[in-house]
């Protein structure tokens, strides 16, 4: 699969590029699901030394894509497979806490993974645009209900029901880097009960 083209939208909506090798003393790669393809392309384009300085954290994608076997075959300095982002988080925080300036960070896969990893990087004090990102695979969204603040993962339809408070939410392109989520706003607040049928917008 190649680079995802997103329809033009408001400035808030994150956009992604294509990972390309950059010189640095160390490389931290975080990917999920189809993001494995971006990792393989990146290492394929890099000179042979990069793999030996790379630490990859990989999780299965929201659609179940799991290319662990192919990634494990790369001779990376460290490869860690985690079942979920929550499970990978302690390791990610430890790695960022021990890292030095100059480390190159690459994020690939679903928007939820990219956004949450980017948030950790920002928490570690790096500018948000100091990481490279490449979207691959699923378009499902991580959405915060602006009413109850609960976050629903892997939202595929618009509108959808908040998994916390049950309100019907319209999925906006308005994105919060700090929360790593799109904003969901009640769609029938003015006219309770008139909820349009959900459309599968994010596959």
């Amino acid at each position, binding site marked *: 699969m190649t680079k995802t083209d997103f329809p033009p939208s408001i400035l808030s909506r994150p956009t992604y590029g294509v990972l390309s090798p950059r010189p640095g003393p160390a490389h931290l790669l975080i990917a999920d699901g189809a993001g494995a393809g971006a990792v393989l392309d990146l290492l394929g384009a890099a000179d042979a030394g990069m793999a030996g300085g790379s630490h990859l954290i990989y999780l299965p994608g929201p659609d179940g894509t799991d290319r662990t076997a192919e990634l494990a075959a790369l001779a990376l300095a460290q490869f860690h497979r985690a079942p979920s982002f929550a499970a990978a988080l302690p390791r990610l925080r430890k790695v960022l806490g021990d890292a030095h300036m100059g480390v190159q960070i690459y994020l690939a896969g679903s928007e939820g993974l990219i956004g949450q990893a980017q948030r950790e990087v920002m928490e570690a*004090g790096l*500018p948000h645009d*100091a990481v490279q990102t490449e979207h691959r695979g699923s378009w499902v969204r991580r959405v915060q209900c602006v009413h109850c603040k609960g976050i629903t993962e892997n939202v595929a339809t618009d509108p959808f029901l908040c998994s916390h408070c049950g309100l019907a939410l319209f999925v906006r392109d308005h994105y919060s880097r700090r929360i790593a989520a799109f904003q969901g706003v009640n769609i029938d607040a003015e006219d309770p009960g008139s909820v349009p049928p959900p459309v599968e917008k994010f596959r």
Partner: protein
Amino acid sequence: MSGGAAKIPVRVAEVTEVNALIRRIRFVRRDGGPMPAFSGGAHTVVEMDDHGTRRLNPYSLMGDPADTTGYSISVRRDDAGRGGSLYLHRHVVPGMDMVISHPVNLFALDLRAKKHLMIAGGIGITPFLAQIAQLAALGGRFELHYATRNPALCAYGDELTARYGGRVHLYHDDAGQMITLPALLAGQPLGTHLYVCGPKGMIRWVRSTADSAGWPRAAVHHEEFLAPPPGKAFDVTLAASGKTLTVGTHQSLLEAIEAAGVDAPYLCRGGACGQCETDVLGCDGTIRHNDHWLTEAQKASGQKIMPCVSRFEGRSLVLDR
């Protein structure tokens, strides 16, 4: 003239010779009120009436941002310069009335950083004095590496060392001491931001070393005010005001526009802030772009000029001003 930031009528409260090249000037408001609050890295534009020549030069505010009783600047005498620093060295005395601008900050600390690594060369120390005072009050983590020619010219080095001890590292060129930059950069924890202020060569060296060490651009901050370079005199037409004027050899385009009574925007007057950006309506010749603001593509397009530092050579230049 209302082109720049709002003005403050001030009186010179104190003049202190810091060393053979640097003098410190402290300004207080003529009406006795407090100065506007500022943040570390901010500068003020000092207006001078140098025996009929109007000079406006930016200087970093070096005092503690928490102290709004006055502003202090440190001025290095530049004998080969256009005359602003010589004027401040030779003619400014306590009690004199002057006009300075409200503070503008083009070199602010990024307070999201986990650590602030500062590299200063010579008079480039001044913005860091204010930033360090601000960080010390906030409990922020910083480290200063400050290079000067020798101990006698190491302005404020002793005060900094006395107050901040091991966080201050001094280097003297005459003693062959050099900042070991690659090693310094390699050892910085994630989330460090890098700041550099000093001579052109130092800024270039620090930025390119950081770049090749993999530092993100947005974590590397620099401040460099350019003095408007002299050049051949040239004519310029201001389309909106219907005037044609000549820019003198030692005058900047911005100064010539102001001297013609045309109000033009500016903040830094040193090619850094972008405020003076002006559309070029016609150009038969070559624009000498000297700023740090326009992108290479914009410079090549010939459709924009920064009148505070850039010049022109050729037959005719028409600006939308």
